[in-house]
């Protein structure tokens, strides 16, 4: 583990999709997730598939990363597909297996549902593959900004999100260090009955928690020493900016949605 450890699934790159404003990506993907449920004909699914495929190609993220995101879902896709195949009794009998009739309606519905899962996973994982977690929290802060008017602590929430993310690698390193230190004293984390293993974790958790409290205390102190006053009037190191490609993507996406509603049956 090193300091530059990347958490999450981000794949560094400089493609159009990487350079898009994270707010654009979140908005488009949010509405994509909503509109996938409106697709109900062959051509409407085809349109969404083309959109997803073009986005994947434009992102230049190697396909194996996307496939990796899909692996846990395979089981679910196959399971729902088979269930639809067996249970749905619409349309004509397509063929029989062991005297069980498979209907065309079942095949169509099975394919539609599997396709929907597939599209959802591909498009949402594209967000996490091309956007760093920090960019996503920055974007969320900006997008929630209107809630400041109703006294919702947007800034505090965003600050906490970035601190959590920032500390994950540090805390993992710390855990690694403490577990090695304890292992060198003979603690065995990996084998033995469950009760013994949980007991073995205690000498790991106590120093971990105590050092996390200490870190929190030190960070709070350091922030106050530098004049941290809460959200009012704070400026940012990285400013988000909506550029020309963002506008273009919004227009393109609106066209796709319009097309989707035209192609619905």
């Amino acid at each position, binding site marked *: 583990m090193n300091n530059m450890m990347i958490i999450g699934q981000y794949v560094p790159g400089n493609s159009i999709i990487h350079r898009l404003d994270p707010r654009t990506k979140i908005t488009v993907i949010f509405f994509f997730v909503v509109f996938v449920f409106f697709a109900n004909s062959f051509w409407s699914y085809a349109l969404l598939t083309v959109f997803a495929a073009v986005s994947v190609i434009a992102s230049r993220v190697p396909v194996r990363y996307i496939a990796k995101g899909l692996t846990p879902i395979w089981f679910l896709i196959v399971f729902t597909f088979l269930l639809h195949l067996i249970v749905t009794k619409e349309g004509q009998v397509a063929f029989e297996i062991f005297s069980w009739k498979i209907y065309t309606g079942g095949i169509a519905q099975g394919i539609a549902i599997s396709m929907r899962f597939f599209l959802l996973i591909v498009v949402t994982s594209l967000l996490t593959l091309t956007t760093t977690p920090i960019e996503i929290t920055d974007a969320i802060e900006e997008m929630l900004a209107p809630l400041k008017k109703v006294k919702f602590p947007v800034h505090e929430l965003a600050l906490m*999100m970035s601190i959590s993310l920032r500390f994950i690698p540090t805390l993992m390193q710390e855990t690694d260090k403490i577990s090695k230190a304890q292992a060198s004293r003979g603690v065995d*984390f990996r084998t033995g009955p469950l009760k013994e293993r949980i007991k073995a974790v205690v000498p790991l958790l106590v120093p971990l928690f105590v050092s996390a409290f200490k870190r929190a205390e030190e960070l709070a102190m350091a922030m106050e020493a530098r004049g941290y006053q809460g959200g009012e009037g704070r400026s940012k190191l990285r400013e988000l900016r909506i550029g020309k490609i963002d506008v273009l993507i919004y227009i393109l996406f609106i066209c796709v949605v319009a097309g989707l509603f035209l192609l619905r049956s």
Partner: protein
Amino acid sequence: MNHKKTLFLIEVAIFAGLALALDMIPFLQFKIWAQGGSISLAMIPIFIVSFRWGLKGGLLSGFLWGILQIPLGGYVLVPLQGFIDYAVAFTVLGFAGVFAGKIKQAVKEGHSKAYFTYILMGVVLGSMLRFAAHFTAGIVFFSESLPDGWHNAWIYSLVYNASYMVPSMIICTAGIYFLFNKQPRSLLNAAA
């Protein structure tokens, strides 16, 4: 902005980070379902924050833990399911914090039996609420994606979610028991 408030923000954030980190460390966990729902000790930091800072801290750190799983690669298959699975389910863990006052009182007075009972009640309450949320999300998901007239959505959801929530709850309860057995004061007393 006083010191206590800044410290509250930071501590809650760091402990949410700790929950995320504990979920990622390979030798501390055991994944049974690849699409989420692993058995790990990750709930412990959230419970500790709940007992230290009360309901507000617990709910907030749980919420952060849940929300941050999305940018780190969560699975949203139906919008409502995503909302319940990530925004609601982890937040309600913080309800363990309703016992915070009683636990602190009991620790101060040295009633070890009393504080263990309250801690246990907190952990069970938080875990049950989280289970209820995942269970509801599961019903939403399965009833959306299974064929019409297939009414067993709740069984799938029950089996799937109980399969990791029950062991997680047992492991976290045991972990918290051993932790508090050793160091009740250093875990509970918020500095300042």
